[in-house]
């Protein structure tokens, strides 16, 4: 009853590498749960049996950024926390995507004060802003589907090799 039943006798199909890679990438997005405050509770609810993020292939929440390709920033990012978020983002391997979950993360939300960053797009690139305070778990699933759409439309040519001058230096010596 799997995919192979579609192949009938012949046993092969034709596609492009871009389509195959994008399809496999988008079907197994591994999220980095950057849960900072109350929105994180809704993010946890997404993993429970009722909402079940596993249906979308993203149940492997990794607590090390080195194994993730989607960072879900869920919560109020203060100025003091901003370098930490950026550092974790930098540790994720390319290609990577970011969801700014909740009003706080997207705009500062109800915290219009000196201590809260008024929108994390000031220091990390954001692919999707998710409205709500907090957004319901189904809304986060919706965001995940939108990110999957976006990933599904990528081509290999979209990603340039990251420029790592430090790495070149190490290799040359």
């Amino acid at each position, binding site marked *: 009853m799997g995919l192979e039943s579609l192949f009938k006798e012949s046993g092969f199909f034709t596609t492009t590498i871009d389509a195959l890679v994008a399809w496999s990438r988008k079907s197994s997005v591994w999220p980095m749960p950057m849960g900072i405050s109350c929105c994180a509770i809704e993010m946890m609810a997404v993993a429970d049996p009722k909402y079940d993020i596993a249906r979308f292939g993203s149940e492997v929440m990794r607590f090390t950024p080195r194994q993730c390709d989607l960072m879900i920033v869920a919560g109020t990012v203060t*100025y003091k926390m901003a370098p930490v978020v950026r550092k974790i983002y930098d540790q994720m391997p390319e290609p990577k995507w970011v969801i700014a979950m909740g009003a706080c993360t997207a705009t500062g939300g109800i915290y219009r004060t*000196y*201590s809260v960053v008024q929108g994390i797009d000031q220091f990390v690139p954001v692919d999707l802003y998710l409205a709500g305070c907090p957004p319901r778990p189904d809304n986060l699933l919706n965001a995940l589907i939108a990110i999957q759409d976006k990933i599904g439309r990528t081509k290999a040519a979209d990603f340039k090799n990251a420029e790592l001058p430090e790495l070149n230096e190490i290799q040359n010596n």
Partner: protein
Amino acid sequence: MISADSLSQKLINQFPETNFDISEYRGEITIQFPKKIVIDLCKFLKYDSELEFLLCEDITAIDWAKRKERFTVVYHLYSFKNNLRLRFKTNIDESEQSGGKAGYSIDSVTSVWQAANWQERETYDMYGINFKGHPDLRRMYMPEDFEYYPLRKDFPLMGIPGSIPLPKK
């Protein structure tokens, strides 16, 4: 149970030369006292066998902005023995600090209650009041190199742009 009257009597007996302003509102006692006796007063409140205010619940401050004695430091205590809460406060004015700069200071009460340690650090972080004799007076919430005191009335709500650097995009 100790009442405001008997408490004020005790205080007057203990500190005969000091002016206290003691008021009671709905069973809550508030004492206003001059800042130089803060440690003696705290020791008395904690160690007196009838009072025993063993728990230092909170230390905070009020900024009156334009008033001459600009800050009020407020202490909240609790006595398990009497099931009684006590608030006492003192006004502080600008004075000469070590290093020759003017600033606001009061003696630290960490020697009386260990719990005062973080509460005084928080008050220092938010209002810039120096607690003299505090073992580790560092900032608590704000970054260590931050130069301002956010709960002072002259600090803008949205902060000072660029005072806390963000990582580069």
